């Protein structure tokens, strides 16, 4: 006869579970970002590698420090992958040859102010990576708008390992390798000074460069194709759904096309907007951040539309050439409101919450009662 004693703390079901976990979700997103990350490291060389490593480490150590201060179990949370993901997203949105203190300050700011001050995992209102990026941009505009031209890793123009260390920790003096405007910024400046779209874009916007990523920009935003591939992986694995990226991209396309149609020489076309800047990175990896986006599908569509609209508005009429980070932060602040008002329809109730009613005619129809001979 078996012992029969199986006692445990009484707990309601279910007593089985999907294999999806928080760590697995983080790992999948990191995996989806790796092609674009590796490509970015390749074309921007050693300084970019240093920057990435520094940002990841700063974020991770800041996480451990914050957990210790808050008295939370360190091992469980430090290994959940969320700090690494935040660090990665931040690094991908930084200028590739930024100095070491940008990485360290940004990483610490993102984790401590962007996440732990709000209560840690799941409680932050704003996307931590974007919060840090915007804080850096406003505080250190010079360093945050100094862009490196692509210099593939093993080519002659690329700095070697030691030179890379020097660039990251001490600074660089060769001005030819840098430019003070990303190409989104350059286009904006030129347009504001009266240039027209067609000749301007002809000169600098090359489709193959934009798709592949051999152009200047932040560390991870350049390769449209690789970012798109990562986004498709996330959709396939059901980490994200089409609602936010779809809504954001469609809104940008529609608004840009409309403005381009109304005044083709003042406003660049939709393809430019989608491929330039961090639109794709933002649509698939930043706006879709689970904690800071709405939890209902309709809410997510509204969120995506808002992000897209604000991105375009800030890019075109705002003071900064890049709008994605600001747009996402503004929409993050609206998320609690969206979640409060936009709720799914409850079974057995109408949208207003009253119980559904069926007329006898409707019941007859649904139960196929007219078909009966009796």
């Amino acid at each position, binding site marked *: 006869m078996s012992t029969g004693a199986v006692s445990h703390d009484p707990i309601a079901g279910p007593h089985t579970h999907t294999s999806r976990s928080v760590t697995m979700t983080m790992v999948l997103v990191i995996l989806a970002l790796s092609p674009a990350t590796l490509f970015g490291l390749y074309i921007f060389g050693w300084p970019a590698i240093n920057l990435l490593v520094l940002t990841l480490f700063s974020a991770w150590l800041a996480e451990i420090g914050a957990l210790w201060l808050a008295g939370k179990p360190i091992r469980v949370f430090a290994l959940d992958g969320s700090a690494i993901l935040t660090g990665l997203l931040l690094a991908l949105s930084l200028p590739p040859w930024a100095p070491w203190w940008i990485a360290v300050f940004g990483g610490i700011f993102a984790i401590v102010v962007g996440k732990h001050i709000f209560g840690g995992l799941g409680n932050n209102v704003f996307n931590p990576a974007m919060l840090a990026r915007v804080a850096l941009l406003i505080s250190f505009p010079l360093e945050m708008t100094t862009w490196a031209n692509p210099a593939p890793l093993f080519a002659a123009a690329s700095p070697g390992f030691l030179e890379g260390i020097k660039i990251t920790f001490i600074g660089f003096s060769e001005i030819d390798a840098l430019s003070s405007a990303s190409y989104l910024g350059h286009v904006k400046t030129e347009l504001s000074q009266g240039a027209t779209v067609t000749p301007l874009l002809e000169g600098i916007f090359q489709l193959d460069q934009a798709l592949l990523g051999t152009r200047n920009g932040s560390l991870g935003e350049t390769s449209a194709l690789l970012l798109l591939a990562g986004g498709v992986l996330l959709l396939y694995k059901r980490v994200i759904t089409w609602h936010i990226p779809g809504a954001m991209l469609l809104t940008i396309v529609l608004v840009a096309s409309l403005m381009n149609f109304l005044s083709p020489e003042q406003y660049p076309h939709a393809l430019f907007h989608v491929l330039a800047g961090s639109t794709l990175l933002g649509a698939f990896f930043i706006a879709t951040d689970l904690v800071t986006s709405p*939890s209902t599908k309709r809410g997510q569509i509204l969120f995506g539309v808002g992000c897209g609209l604000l991105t375009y508005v800030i890019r075109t009429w705002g003071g900064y050439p890049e709008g994605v980070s600001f747009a996402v932060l503004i929409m993050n602040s609206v998320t609690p409101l969206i979640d409060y008002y936009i709720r799914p329809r409850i079974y057995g109730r109408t949208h207003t919450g009253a119980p559904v009613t069926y007329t006898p005619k409707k019941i007859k129809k649904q139960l196929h009662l007219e078909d009966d001979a009796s």
Partner: protein
Amino acid sequence: MKLFRFRGGVHPQSNKVLSADRAIEAMPLSERLYIPLQQHIGAPAEPRVKQGERVLKGQLLAHSQGMISAPVHAPTSGTVLAIGDFTAPHPSGLPVRTITLEPDGKDECLETAKLISPFVLEPGDIAAKVGAAGIVGMGGATFPSAVKLLRDEKRPIHTLVINGGECEPYLTCDDRLMRESPKEIADGVVIMLHALKARRALIAIEDNKPEAFSAMMKACRLIGNVDVLKVPSLYPMGSEKQMIQTLTGMEVPAGKMAMDIGVLVHNVGTAFAVHQALRNSRPLVSRIVTVSGGAISNTKNLDVPIGTLVSDLIEYCGGYKEPPARLLMGGPMMGQALPHDRVPIVKGSSGIIALTAEEIKPKHTMPCIRCGSCVSVCPCGLMPLEMAARARVNDAEGAINYGLMDCISCGSCAYACPSNIPLVQYFNYAKGLAAKEREEKSKHDKTRQLAEFRAARLEREAREKAEAAARRKAQREAKKAAEAAAVKKAEAENSEASA
């Protein structure tokens, strides 16, 4: 027939292959049977027998109390050893009033009256016979079936749905019953149709049971108003509300019942029991139980007399392969965790599942990352993350605002949650909190009412007292005045006489 889709739902690994091909075996009689008096929703049954009395198989042991109740019958012949407390098959392990029966091995049946065809009976009589047979919902809900077979002229039933969904993983009892006794089930369905005077019946079977589907199709081929349909295998398809939505496109209105839209749902096992009761005069004294799970040596589908201990079933199945991490009565999604196996099988025990740690996939709970998976899978359109957040801070009203009272506790949300948050536990807690608050409020209202009545009564008494006093005073004064007047009159007469 066109089918509709319900919102959300999850696809847990079904694991039915572990027991789906095991034909139903009769469970041999145990040394003792422990028959609880509460195996159904409603008032417990009241014992009719005394300690030491010998009973026959099918004899009434306890009668129902009131309309929402069910009687309990002896699963076999034997002696009533005791009427007292025994461990209930419930996670709490709390006791329930139970009749202990010692089988005498003869399995002697109670003599029953000659059988009449159920179709000459009045529909009300069919319901009465079903009630007298102690039949309750065999899908696990155990609602007294007689109540659900009474025809209500104000809410006529047009469509009877027979639930052959069995969406819970591991459970194969309904599957086997449909494969092995399709004609009996079909007969039960036709009897039910007669009782309800409903126009047609739809037997819905999930598409992961092709053999059961063909068996039922064959059995119902010549019955004109009974259709057998395949429905998609999706949890919780077997839930009444979702089944109705899939088959008819209509939703049961909040706060109302399926009867209000002309539909009624009964489990295939209930239909089988109705057949047994109306054709063979057999009350509900046994049921099919699936014994399965990774920790069981031999999985089986057993025909078990009510009151058999779970430990006896496990022993009959070869015992445990390894100590189970959890022992469940029911399926893994909505089943109840048993504290140990010395509890009896009751009318609603569809399965005994002994799970290993790998099958449960236990993980520690992380904070909610607001991923919204729970919202996507909820078949009722609720927001589990918001309800749980409010339950966590004892805000029952807030949780109700987000739909807590519309929750069917299917567990899809907790199944899908990547942070392993025990959402259903939070909802159970919040529902309990809401019930307590309601009770306290009603008590508070009653107390206030009583205080008001008392104040009014005191005021009334004081008023009456004052009126009475005033009346007495007026009387006294009138008397005095009359006396004074009389004296004066007498004086006047005297003076007149003397003058």
